[in-house]
């Protein structure tokens, strides 16, 4: 089979265009900052950014002027406070917003993945959310007449996910929090998987239950160790909570934020340089001790 491995630079250049809807998914875990930085370096403009929790990754994309719209369900710096670049862009009228709840966003990706126009759910009765967002609507059940809330399908032009490992055929494996990575990828027209490690297909095939996405769904596999920092990768590195705290002061001050982007994104040619600048000591403090899953037996049937 033709290898799907490419550089992140090539993958972003080939698959993401100005004006696209982009979803970088991974709930708290596996957030591809490496891909976001490449998008900033390539100067994409006019993106609609979809993500349950915009997090620092979209604060950076918005600060760099890549986005014109944000689709989300919880906009904040978890455990810290606001995302200041996004807040400023909304207040300045530079960033449109379209707002759902977590289950609403899960449902939007699921409807997109399953090619349905809508996804039914029970989330908005008595809330002002449907009044604030006219795309939240209702249908009547043909069984009992109940009015059920619905959200519309979301089909990103590109979904980018981060994962622990993949093989060259594009089979992607994840452990720990998978969030909405599968639904967001299946909903997308094009999928980029950024991984910590490229492994032989035999490693994947020894444990097919761990496969989040089979290769038929994935357009490019990009190997970027530490590519999810300052978020975390289960078993590989911890969340860099100090970075999340430090971001508050950085993003609060537009000049400082601009300098940060110059130093950590535009001034570097990729994630390897970022990791080098981070320094081996900081990287080392984020490495966990081992905790093996144990092995199960699939059986050999001949």
């Amino acid at each position, binding site marked *: 089979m033709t290898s799907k491995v490419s550089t992140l630079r090539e993958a972003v250049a080939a698959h993401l265009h100005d004006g696209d809807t982009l979803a970088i998914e991974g*709930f*708290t*875990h596996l957030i591809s900052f490496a891909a976001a930085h490449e998008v900033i370096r390539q100067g994409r403009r006019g993106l609609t950014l979809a993500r*349950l*929790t915009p997090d620092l990754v979209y604060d950076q994309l918005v600060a760099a002027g890549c986005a014109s719209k944000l689709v*989300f*369900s*919880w*906009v*904040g710096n*978890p*455990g810290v406070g*606001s995302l200041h670049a996004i*807040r400023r862009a*909304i*207040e300045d009228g530079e960033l449109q917003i379209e*707002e*759902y*709840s*977590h*289950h609403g966003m*899960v449902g939007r990706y*699921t409807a997109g993945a399953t090619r349905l126009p809508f996804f039914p*759910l*029970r*989330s*908005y*009765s*008595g*809330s*002002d*959310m449907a009044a*604030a967002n006219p795309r939240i609507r209702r249908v009547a059940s043909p069984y009992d007449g*109940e009015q059920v809330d619905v959200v519309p399908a979301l089909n990103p032009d590109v979904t980018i996910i981060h994962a622990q490992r993949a093989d060259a055929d594009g089979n992607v494996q994840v*452990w*720990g*929090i*998978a*969030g*909405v990575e*599968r*639904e967001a990828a299946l909903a997308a027209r094009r999928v980029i998987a950024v991984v910590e490690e490229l492994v032989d297909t035999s490693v994947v095939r020894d444990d097919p239950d761990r496969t989040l996405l089979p290769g038929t769904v994935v357009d490019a596999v990009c190997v970027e160790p530490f590519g999810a920092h300052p*978020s*975390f990768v*289960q078993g590989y590195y*911890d*969340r860099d*909570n100090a970075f999340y705290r430090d971001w508050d002061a950085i993003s609060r001050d537009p000049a400082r934020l601009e300098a940060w982007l110059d130093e950590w994104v535009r001034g570097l040619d990729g994630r390897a340089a970022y990791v080098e600048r981070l320094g081996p000591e900081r990287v080392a403090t984020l490495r*966990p001790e081992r*905790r093996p899953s144990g092995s199960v037996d699939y059986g050999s049937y001949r």
Partner: protein
Amino acid sequence: MSDATPDELMIAAAAAELAGVRTVFVGIGLPNTAANLARASVAPDLELIYESGIFGARPGRLPVSIGDPALVSGSAACMSMRDLFGGFLQGGRIEVGMLGAAQIDRYGNLNTTVIGPYAHPSVRLPGSGGACEIALNARRVVVVMNQSLRSFVERVDFVTSPGHHRPDGSGGRPAWAGAGPTAVVTQLGVYRFGADGEMELAGLHPGVDEATVDAGCGWRMRRAASVARLPEPPASIMAAIRQMLA
């Protein structure tokens, strides 16, 4: 005067609300500590369920985020958000949801979206996350929040998560929904709701009097049939809280 800090009193009171409960949907911060405390005391069978999809976490440290890797390692199950929000929360399998808020009204309507009008807010808050669906689908809701004239308001600026009904009496809860907020825990006391869905002062923390409650409430707070004087948390509970927060 109590030896416990206001946060510690809130944690102890919130934990007491979980007595005998088996499934609680928690966020980070005070609710997380309260739920861990409950499991160590009044609710030994309690499973902590996080919106990142983690069931039965046994973290080796106090988690900083709902997506802390310490919540995953050693947990009983790690589900997709589709299963968590669909099959578990909406499926009616979560007994208690713990929620915070920037504003609450006397009917338990919660605002975590905006201060001011939605289109031009004076303060943009994080939004719902999973709060609106927790408020509807958990079998009951325990609210944990700081109380002041800014947060206990006559009318919330935006109903993110519905309480018992609107201030004008409209918008009652659908038949399939959970019971909604049954308790509100603040640094001043514990509140419950009357049969008509209106909040009532049910208990005062040590050292707090009713005048302080009234001074920290934007409407005339009703009293329950009897207002309890909440006891000082026992030494064992205080020690457990302080060990968790250490």
